């Protein structure tokens, strides 16, 4: 495990929401959240949905409220005696019913404890709101009482050995300081958060505090460190665009685009000219303001653009490569930029580049200048550049343009293979029917997004989202490219049925 590389941190996909509860028994319990649920102490009266055994928790201490329209959870403290701390801030009285509803995000820490959190009550209860924990997660307890320094990381020489690939070799160090600990980020690739906040260098850690490293949650309970061993995270992308306008809001380019893609999906984006394909791609890339949200692995891209932008890779239609550089040097430089020296040796980087070149089929071209390559080979280099950094989502704008039929199929097969490795690949293509598996004859795409320009508002709307065969049935066509004929306006050689298909899809969705 030690020799393997640290991967870019992508919090686990938004699985069903759950609560990780840790009380005095030091035994972590994961409780699934299923809609509105009450939380309180076990007692003889009517029980709450989520029960804990702690005298400092009220009988009906708080409530988890599910907003189905937004798919998010809120928490309300029912004016309990001891209150609830959310990420270290105590909920305040709002009205006789309770506190204000507080929207919960993945990793938020709810705590019922004394007002002085640095001196936790022995009966304190910690609950972590999670969108990334599996109920069958394995938890480990390590007694760290005898150590002055506790190293945490993927390396085998650490006291706390993590299996999470998002953890660096020695990711963090906890140093005892009196009754507390000081946690140091050891120059990790993906950072360390303490009680929901990313630490800058180091931070003081008290009993009952919660560390998060990649997808690993570590809770300090007295002299015990409780932590999970997450499986390799997969990914999901949720696109929720209410409206994308330009020209000071006078012109709408996209309207009401909502769909979700899971890792492993190879998604075809279809649409006529002006339907908003490029605008959609830009919105997913976070390039330009959009009224909506792009949720990648439970995190809002627009709100965390700086840290998340590198998780979405773009293979542009027009290549962005320096033509006077060799293929190998191009990839080495990208690896040197994306993968820091501390966590990746030169050998590991070269090994990674070799793997990518072999996967994409450009190993034999490694010493060629980009200017000496054909259009198709340049596209492959462009794809390889994106693969260096462990991105979760790849968007390819016409990766098959300018290629012959055989090369188009080969290019699509490479992209499909990337998707099969737990990535999301989205492709704009005008020759989608060439992307077929040669043995089964089935389309390589798993999902199809069809954008159509409505004659009513001139904006691009979602005319379909779903599987390939479903798409063909929806539009009554035998080939994917015939969908364009259905939705394109008559002056572009189509039947002009865009509005009908937009309405049909809207009504199907309800």
């Amino acid at each position: 495990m030690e020799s393997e590389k640290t991967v870019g941190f992508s919090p686990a996909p938004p699985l069903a929401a759950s609560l990780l509860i840790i009380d005095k028994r030091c035994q972590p319990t994961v409780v699934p959240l299923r809609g509105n649920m009450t939380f309180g102490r076990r007692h003889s009266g009517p029980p709450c949905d989520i029960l804990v055994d702690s005298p400092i928790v009220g009988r009906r201490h708080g409530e988890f409220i599910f907003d189905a329209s937004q798919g998010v959870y809120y928490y309300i403290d029912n004016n309990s005696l001891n209150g609830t701390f959310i990420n270290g801030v105590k909920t305040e009285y709002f009205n006789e019913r309770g506190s204000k509803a507080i929207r919960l995000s993945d990793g938020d820490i709810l705590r019922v404890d004394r007002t002085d959190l640095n001196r936790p009550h022995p009966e304190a209860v910690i609950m972590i709101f999670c969108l990334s924990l599996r109920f069958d997660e394995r938890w480990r307890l390590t007694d760290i009482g005898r150590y002055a320094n506790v190293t945490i990381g993927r390396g085998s020489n650490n006291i706390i050995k993590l299996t999470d690939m998002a953890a660096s070799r020695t990711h963090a160090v906890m140093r005892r300081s009196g009754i507390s600990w000081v946690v140091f980020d050891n120059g990790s690739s993906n950072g360390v958060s303490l009680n929901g906040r990313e630490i800058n260098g180091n931070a003081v850690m008290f009993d009952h505090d919660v560390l998060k490293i990649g997808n690993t949650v570590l809770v300090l309970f007295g002299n015990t460190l409780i932590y999970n061993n997450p499986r390799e995270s997969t990914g999901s992308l949720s696109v929720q665009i209410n409206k994308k306008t330009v020209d000071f809001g006078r012109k709408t380019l996209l309207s009401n685009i909502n769909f979700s893609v899971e890792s492993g999906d190879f998604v075809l984006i279809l649409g006529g000219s002006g339907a908003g394909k490029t605008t959609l791609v830009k919105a997913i890339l976070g390039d330009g303001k959009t009224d909506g949200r792009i949720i990648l692995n439970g995190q809002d891209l627009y709100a965390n653009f700086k840290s998340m932008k590198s998780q979405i890779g773009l293979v542009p239609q027009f290549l962005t490569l320096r033509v006077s550089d060799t293929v190998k040097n191009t990839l080495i430089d990208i690896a040197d930029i994306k993968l820091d020296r501390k966590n990746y040796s030169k050998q590991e980087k070269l090994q990674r580049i070799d793997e990518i070149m072999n996967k994409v089929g450009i190993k034999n071209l490694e010493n060629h200048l980009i200017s000496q390559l054909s259009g198709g080979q340049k596209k492959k280099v462009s794809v390889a550049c994106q693969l260096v950094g462990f991105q979760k989502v790849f968007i390819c704008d016409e990766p098959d343009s300018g290629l012959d039929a055989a090369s188009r199929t080969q290019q699509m097969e490479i992209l499909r293979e990337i998707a099969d490795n737990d990535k999301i690949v989205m492709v704009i293509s005008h020759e989608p029917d060439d992307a077929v598996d040669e043995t089964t004859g089935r389309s390589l795409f798993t999902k199809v997004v069809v954008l159509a320009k409505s004659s009513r508002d001139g904006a691009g709307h979602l005319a379909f989202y779903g599987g390939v065969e479903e798409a063909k049935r929806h539009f009554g066509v035998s080939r994917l490219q015939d969908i364009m004929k259905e939705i394109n306006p008559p002056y572009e050689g189509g039947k002009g049925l865009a509005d009908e298909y937009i309405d049909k899809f809207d009504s199907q969705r309800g």
Partner: protein
Amino acid sequence: MKNTSLITQTHVYFKKVFRISLREKAWKYIIFAAIISFIVAAITGPDMFKNFDRTNSGYFTLCSACIWIGIFNSIQSVCREHEIIRAEYRQGMKLSAYIFANVCWQALLCLVQSAIIFSISCIFTDFGKSAHLLVNPYVEVFITVYLLTFGAAVLGIMVSSLAGTPATAMTIMPFVLIVQLIMSGVLFELKDASEAVSYITLSKWGMSSFGSISDLNGYHLAIEEPLRSSGALMPGVSVMPNKNEFYSHESARLFISWAWIFGLTVFSTIVSIAALKIKNRDS
């Protein structure tokens, strides 16, 4: 995911710029500098330090050549890569590292060019005849030539960062050069606003450096020579108008002038980074 440090990225991009520049025949910039220097030096010739007019013109020509060569080095360096920069910025490139790498490459290229400019100039002109302030005129003139060429190269990077396309950059370039030449204070007397603007031009501080090194104020005008030989002008009397304070033969003046050139270079670097940040600003 955290990206690699600024220093690491600058190193990576410097190697890249260096490698690509060599492949794209960077030596043509050196040949180009040699040709320009040869023409300039041949014109200024051995009589450069004969009188105020020849010295002033000689240094003005040298100053203009340095600025021209420097800007020409880099005017297309950034603007031709805007799409690549945008793509690499998304992948974690630090824009400041990219600019620093280009600045470092120009520092190296300009060092070679300055050595050539100065060497060729020395063939035609005996700088040993000139006055000096610190060590000897050769060292002082060379430092000025280098600072000017490098400053102009970074100015070129700035224009290139601001321009959207190579065509735009090449359209802007003549205007930048004209402003530099006019604002040197050699061709026209500068007053009020134009004088204020001249403070942010390399040519003004380049001429100030050359003027203070060679004690330009100490020279007599060419027109005095026939007057003296005819006896119309008494010895020790000069028709030279007011002495230019920027040419005063003082070490402090030279250091101030060099500091201005260096400061303008730093300013151009900062503006270049800011321009790229604005062009690639996050949503």
